[in-house]
C-alpha cells in the first residue's frame, strides 16, 4: 500500500530530524564520561575524571556562582515585577494598558543583540559604567516578558467573582490577594520564575555585552575556554548545563502539576 509506505517514510524522516537535533547533545554527554584526553571515538573508558576536574576548576566554580546568583536575583525581580504588572493590566483599568502590554512584551520581539547594544549605549550616554547591577538589569528586561505572558494568562482565567466573594466575606483586598489570588496563580508564578532563571542562566548574547571585566557567567566562561582549546572539561560542563536547563523546568512543571491536582485545579 502506498499509504503505508508514505507513513514509513514520514516516520523515518522524523527520526532523522530528531537525530540531527539531539545527536550532538548526546555526543557531548557521552564524551564527558570519556577517560581519554582527546574527545574522539572509540571511547577508551568510562570515567568521572572531567567532572572532578570541573569541580576543582576555580574559574568555573566562580562562573557557576555568578550564574546562580544572577539567575536567582533575575527570577526574583522579574517574577515580582511580572506579577505586579499582570495584576495591574488584568485587574485594573490602566489608561493605555494595551500599549503598556505590548511594550512589556516587546523585548522578546526585538533581536537580543539590538537590545543588548541599545541598553549599553543608553547607559554609556547616561555615564553609567558596566556593572553587575547593569547585567542584572539587562537580564530582568528580557526575562520579564516571559513571566508576564505566563502569569497574565493564568490571571485571566481566575474569575473576578472569586475575589469579590472573598471580599464580601470580610477579606481586605490585600488579604484577598494572599489568600485567594496568589495561591490560585502560584503554578504560573513558579513557572514564570523558572523561565526567568533558566533564560538568565542560559544567556550569552546580552551577557557578553553587559558583563563588567572579570565577571564570567557559565556560558561566557565556556565561550572563553573554547577560544583556547577544546578541553573534555567543556563536555562535562555542557552535561551539567543540559541537566540544569532541561531538568529544572521539567521539575517545575511536575511540581506545578502536583500542586494544582492536589488543590483541585
Amino acid at each position: 500500500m502506498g499509504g503505508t509506505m508514505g507513513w514509513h517514510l514520514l516516520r523515518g524522516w522524523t527520526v532523522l530530524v530528531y537525530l540531527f537535533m539531539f545527536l550532538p547533545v548526546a555526543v557531548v554527554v557521552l564524551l564527558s564520561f570519556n577517560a581519554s584526553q582527546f574527545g574522539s571515538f572509540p571511547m577508551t573508558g568510562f570515567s568521572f575524571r572531567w567532572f572532578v576536574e570541573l569541580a576543582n576548576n576555580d574559574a568555573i566554580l566562580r562562573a557557576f556562582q555568578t550564574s546562580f546568583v544572577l539567575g536567582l536575583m533575575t527570577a526574583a525581580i522579574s517574577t515580582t515585577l511580572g506579577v505586579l504588572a499582570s495584576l495591574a493590566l488584568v485587574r485594573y483599568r490602566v489608561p493605555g494598558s494595551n500599549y503598556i502590554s505590548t511594550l512589556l512584551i516587546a523585548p522578546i520581539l526585538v533581536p537580543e543583540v539590538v537590545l543588548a547594544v541599545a541598553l549599553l549605549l543608553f547607559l554609556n550616554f547616561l555615564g553609567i559604567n558596566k556593572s553587575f547591577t547593569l547585567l542584572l538589569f539587562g537580564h530582568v528586561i528580557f526575562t520579564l516578558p516571559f513571566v508576564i505572558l505566563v502569569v497574565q494568562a493564568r490571571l485571566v482565567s481566575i474569575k473576578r467573582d472569586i475575589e469579590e466573594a472573598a471580599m464580601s466575606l470580610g477579606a481586605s483586598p490585600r488579604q484577598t490577594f494572599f489568600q485567594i489570588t496568589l495561591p490560585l496563580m502560584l503554578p504560573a508564578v513558579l513557572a514564570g520564575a523558572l523561565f526567568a532563571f533558566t533564560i538568565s542562566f542560559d544567556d550569552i548574547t546580552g551577557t557578553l555585552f553587559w558583563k563588567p571585566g572579570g565577571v564570567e557567567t557559565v556560558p561566557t566562561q565556556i565561550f572563553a575556554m573554547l577560544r583556547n582549546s577544546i578541553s573534555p572539561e567543556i563536555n562535562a560542563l555542557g552535561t551539567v548545563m543540559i541537566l540544569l536547563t532541561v531538568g529544572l523546568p521539567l521539575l517545575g512543571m511536575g511540581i506545578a502539576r502536583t500542586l494544582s491536582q492536589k488543590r483541585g485545579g
Partner: protein
Amino acid sequence: MSSVHLNNIVKRFGAVTAVQKTSLEIQEGAFVTLLGPSGCGKTTNLRMIAGLLDPTEGEILIDGKRVNDVPIHKRNLGLVFQNYALFPHKTVAENVAFGLKYRDVPSSDISRRVTEALELVQLPDVGERYPKELSGGQQQRIALARAIVIEPDVLLLDEPLSALDANLREDMRVELKRIQERIGVTTVFVTHDQSEALAMSDQIVVMSAGRVEQVGAPEEVYNTPASEFVANFLGASNILAAECKSRSAEGVELETPIFGKLVVPAEKAPNLGGAGPAKLVIRAEKLLVAAKDAAAPDGVISVPATIEAVDYQGQAVRYFVRAGEAQLQAINMIDQRPFAAGDEVNLRLRPIDCAALPDQ
C-alpha cells in the same frame, strides 16, 4: 438583618447611564427581587449595594447608616454569584469557614457553625471535599452556606439559579426560599426569570433601561401592571388601544373597537386619571376561546373571532386569534381537544380581569 435604602441613586459608566435616579426601600427581613431583562440595571444596583461599584450620585443606606464610603469587606453582606465563585483551592469546609476567620469567632465555634451551615443547606457530609468534586447544584448550596454562615445583614443573590438546569432550578428555588424564611435575612435577589420572581418574592421591583417600572407584591405586579413594559414582561398580555370615557368609584369605563364598552375595576387602573386615550391590558390566560354556538354567562363579553395559529404546549395551548383588526393571544387550559387553525370561535372576556393604563 437590616433594611436597605437607595436614595436617588444614579450610576453612569462613561457616557452610558446604567441606573437612572432610583429610589428603593427594602424592609428588614423582606425578600425583594430585582427583575428585568439583561442590561436593565438590576445587577448594577445589586453591585452598588454590595460595594463592588460606587454610585455616581445618591446614597445607599443599610440599617439607616450611609455606606457609600464603606468598602465591601466591611459591609457584612452575604453575596452569592451565578457561577458559585467557590474557592477552588480550599475544601468545602474551608470555603464556608472563610468569612468567619475575619470575624471574632473563636476557633471552637467555627467548626460548629460550619457544620450547622452545611446542615442547613442539606449537605452535611461534604466538608472535606473540594468544590470541583461537587455538582453545580451542590456547589451553589455551598456558596449559599458560605454567605449565610457569617450572619450577614443583607443577603445579595445575583442570578444564583441561572446556571442550573431546569429541574434543579425549581428545587433550589423552594430550598432557597425555605432557608431565607428560616433565618429571616433581608434578601435582594436579581433575576431575569419572571417565574422565579413571582414564586419567591415578597416584593418585585421591575426594572427596564435603568429605571424602576413598578414595585409591588407578585400578584399586584402581575395583575395590575403599572406600565406597558411590565404588562409585556410578566407573562403574555394583549394591549389594546382604548378610549377612556369616564372614571367613577366603581371603575373606569373604556371603549375599544373589538370589545365595545366595558368597565374595568378602579383598583386595576390606578394610574388612569379620567377621560382620554388609554390602553386596555388583557392577560392571555384571561381571554377564553369558546365554541361559536355556546352561550356566554352573564357579565362576560363575547365577540366572534377566527383562530389563526395554534401553539400546543401540553397541558395548555396558546391561540393566535384574529378579532376585527387585531391579533390577540389566548392561553387556555385544554378541555378535551384544542381548536384548530381556521375555526370560527367566540372570544370571552370578563371586564374585572382586565387592567387599564394611561396611553403614554
